């Protein structure tokens, strides 16, 4: 190797160090970071554009909302570990509770700061089945029948999967009236599960694209999206007689907005979710709005919905009893052997 080449290498190193030391310069506009979970991508893409327009008309400022998506628990952990989210919009209150408890990023009473338990929109758990419903799946009882393959993600790693699990539990509890029966029902259900994907999107793809399973337990919005994106002629949605009211909450991260001085715009961003425009966008993306929507009302069939607070005593309790290590979900699998 000749000296020329060494010089080149040294230059390259110098150049690369220079490259990294140029940190992204702050533009003169407002930037918000919304850390969210997986299925909300399409919703917030639309909503962010609408909000930017609204905010510019109101104040003259340009606001750019950056998005980060991933599994709800993972996203919460990133925020706890220092990802500077101005607002979080996650799948479960439990994940935001963890932020309040472990890193004191926001007060413990965060959920009472916005209307409707800080959930501007709701969803529920429904079934996605193959066209013509060959296995005749109409309600939860059909899901646990022998020979029905059920696709649902792993509740240990997926927020959506926890809602699925709790919905099945709620049905059995209401139907048979005691915990023992509910537990039996849920263990039979998981005996029918051939694959536990790590996230809700993974489970949808297993069901839709790999053609595995007879029924997919999914968020209502996710089921509609799959239907629209991947084939109305191949699947249909079945609504069970009873399901759970899934409340994906939103919150302002106080510590971050105070540091970045973005409290006003971040607050406006969340408030805008509750406005008629925001609600309309949520409904457009198949989230059940809090304000009755004219245009999209026919989309959402009436389901008998139970809430996590009335049946499970809130997320902290449900998490501990069912999903923590050694909880009922683990016992079901330990017993299956």
């Amino acid at each position, binding site marked *: 190797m000749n000296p020329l080449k060494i010089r080149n*290498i040294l230059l390259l190193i110098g150049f*690369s160090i220079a490259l990294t030391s140029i940190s992204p310069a702050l533009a003169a506009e407002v930037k918000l970071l919304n850390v969210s979970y997986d299925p909300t*991508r399409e919703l917030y893409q639309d909503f962010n554009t609408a909000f930017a327009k609204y905010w510019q008309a109101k104040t003259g400022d340009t606001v750019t909302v950056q998005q980060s998506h991933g599994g709800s628990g993972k996203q919460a952990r990133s925020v706890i570990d220092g*990802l500077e989210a101005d607002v979080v919009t996650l799948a479960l209150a439990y994940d935001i509770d963890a932020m309040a408890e472990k890193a004191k990023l926001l007060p413990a009473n965060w959920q009472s700061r916005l209307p409707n338990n800080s959930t501007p929109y709701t969803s529920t758990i429904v079934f996605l089945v193959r066209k013509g419903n060959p296995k005749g799946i109409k309600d939860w009882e059909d899901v646990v029948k022998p020979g029905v393959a059920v696709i649902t993600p792993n509740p240990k790693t997926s927020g959506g999967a926890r809602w699925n699990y709790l919905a099945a539990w709620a049905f059995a509890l209401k139907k048979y009236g005691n915990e023992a029966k509910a537990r039996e029902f849920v263990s039979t259900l998981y005996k029918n599960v051939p694959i536990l994907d790590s996230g809700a999107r993974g489970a949808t793809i297993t069901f839709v694209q790999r053609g595995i399973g007879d029924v997919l337990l999914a968020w209502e919005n996710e089921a509609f*999206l799959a239907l629209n994106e991947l084939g109305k002629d191949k699947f249909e949605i079945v609504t069970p007689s009873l399901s759970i009211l899934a409340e994906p909450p939103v919150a302002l991260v106080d510590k971050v907005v105070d540091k970045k001085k973005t409290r006003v715009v971040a607050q406006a961003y969340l408030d805008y979710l509750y406005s008629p425009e925001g609600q309309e966008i949520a409904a457009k993306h198949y989230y059940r709005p809090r304000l009755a929507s004219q245009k999209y009302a026919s989309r959402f069939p009436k389901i008998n919905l139970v809430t996590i607070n009335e049946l499970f005593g809130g997320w902290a309790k449900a998490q501990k009893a069912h999903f923590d290590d050694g909880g009922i979900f683990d016992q079901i699998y330990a017993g299956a052997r």
Partner: protein
Amino acid sequence: MTESTWMRRVLIGIALAFLGLVLIVPLGTVFGGALEKGFANAFHEVQDPITGAAILLTLKMAAVVVPLNLIFGISAAWSIAKFDFFGKKILMTLIDLPFTVSPVVSGLIFVLLFGAQGLLGPWLAAHDIQVIFAIPGIIIATLFVTFPYVARELIPIMQAQGNDQEEAAVTMGANGWQTFYHVTLPNIRWGLIYGVILLNARAMGEFGAVSVVSGHVRGLTNTIPLHVEILYNEYNLVGAFCVASILAFLAIGTLIAKVLVKKQGEL
């Protein structure tokens, strides 16, 4: 002097069948998936500005990681292969360690170190230095993951070559640098290039560790592999495979470069 034609064919056949099953099938799936909606659509997919940002970030990162780990690799291989000292095997094992650490854990350790709840977190926050969930974090995690490649590639070659030539050079009055350039380097040239190529490819393709420290902010902290995951999660399977094909082409590109360099060297 060598095997019969028959034997050769059988050996080549087995090797190709194995590679076909393990390599070509998944690769074909990726390219097939990318072209499902035709070439025009594939071009459109990769021209997306967010994909562009991901490519740029990945290249920047590789531009830092590759030289640093290259220097380390040569230095480690030199000290290990040319000298005997106490604790050598432990040192070698430590160099291998990043291989064995699950990518998930590789990310996690840097979160434990630099994260807001981590050891250095409060200090970094007080000085307003953002490491994790920003570009430095991605670079550090990639440095860690690709750490052993060059050293690992060079050590067996240097060992196989022995010290005789270097010793002769030194005896004849060459200094350390001269010995390295004129005696060692020509011998390890190909191993070195292989090492750099592996290092580069792995740096660009690393997913697990980077995923933990990146924060996944669209257009800011997403490398190519993370962007692939995002597209996949948006039901854009075709787009995901298109962007994945970029990585495959990057790898094939560096390998073509290698072949060209080699031809040049032989002239």
